[in-house]
């Protein structure tokens, strides 16, 4: 699977928090993520390094919660990499998210 989700992490989340709750949680992530990406882009445009880092940090944390390793790794690169010269990193992260979100939803609904 290109979205690369750590099944062990995901199923542990389902076991400890409840499968129905995880469906809700994945949907919440899908709803909240666009605002985080918007913040990432606006911080980048405004050269606001701290805001940029925070937005990347939020995405990283959420990705890791679901075991979305590729997304988490890419978000971490942005978090720790400082303000990038261009938006290519954000685009790449967005592309990863667009792949990951449906995969997570599918996984959550079994």
């Amino acid at each position, binding site marked *: 699977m290109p979205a690369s989700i750590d099944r062990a992490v995901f199923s542990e989340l389902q076991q*400890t928090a*409840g499968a129905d709750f995880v469906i*809700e949680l994945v949907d*919440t992530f899908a709803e*909240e993520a666009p605002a985080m990406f918007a913040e990432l882009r606006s911080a980048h445009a405004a050269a606001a390094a701290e805001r940029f880092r925070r937005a990347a940090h939020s995405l990283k*944390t*959420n990705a890791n*919660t679901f075991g979305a390793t590729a997304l988490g790794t890419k978000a971490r690169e942005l978090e720790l990499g400082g303000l990038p010269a261009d938006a290519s990193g954000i685009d790449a992260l967005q592309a990863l998210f667009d792949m990951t979100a449906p995969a997570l939803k599918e996984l959550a609904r079994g």
Partner: protein
Amino acid sequence: MAERGARLLVVDDNKVNRLLLARNVTLQGHQVETAENGRIALEMLRRGGFDLLVLDIEMPDMDGFQVMEQLAADKALRDIPVIVTSSLEGVATIVRCIELGADDYLHKPVNPVLLKARIGSSLEKKRLRDQQKALVERFATSAVAADLQQSGFALGGKRVPATVMFCDIRGFTTIVESQGPEETIELLNTWYTLMFEAITAQSGVVNQMVGDGLMAIFGAPLPVAEPPLAAVRAALEMTEMIDLLNAERAAEGKTALAIGVGIATGDVIAGYTGTQERATYTCVGDTVNLAARLEAHTKLAVRGILVDGATHAALAGRVASEPLGAVQFKGKAQPVDVFAIATARSA
């Protein structure tokens, strides 16, 4: 168990984190409320009723560090345990959290088993702290407990102006010999209850109880508007209480009690003395010795309440008194002017 059904506040600006933490905590049997930034969290905490805080660090408006700083500065909130959850990297964050008083630090994503263990241990620590606080209050009087909580425990004293009172039951040994041990303890408990009541009502602090005697301080550790007047009023109140107690005892065919009170005003050296493990708030110095001498002198003077010149001068005629002249006390270079306070009985 405190661990069951505690009330927790989960603070995180990220909705997924917030929902997941709240879910985990609820599954552990606790009640949970959530806040999305530090400012809202503080408002909720100030409304009261929370046993523990699960706190994120990076948040807009007010971050976790600022929340902990505010908590530490707030007497009502500084004992609430804080578990920090963050995915910030680096030891510096953890160190700063611990320095700011966090009980624990959990890395995100938070492992629910670890979270459960940390919450349980933090709540248990809080329960012990609360218990300790209650004990300190019971044994050290609330004024000393409040001073301890405010300034922390430090051995070492300071010179402060205060009024010192000594009080004991006249002929207590005779009373003890005439009755059973249970009755003696009951009498002492009644006596202490009445005396504490009178002293605390005037903002005095009882700092020593020995057998049938006690020592109280007015003006330390907490300031009192007029320590001499407060002490004399407490003494008069104590005398009235004893009269009431005696009326009851007379009805039961028991002997009447009489108390002797000595009061002196001046500088005292006040502070916590002892060791780090066991210490007591105490006052020493000439003023303390003089109050003890005056209390002992009540037998000879056949008066209930004796005060020194400094106390008498501070009363400025607001309480009726009678000069007894100068008395030479043991350990005092100069004779001391002694005054008897008029009680209901002597008036």
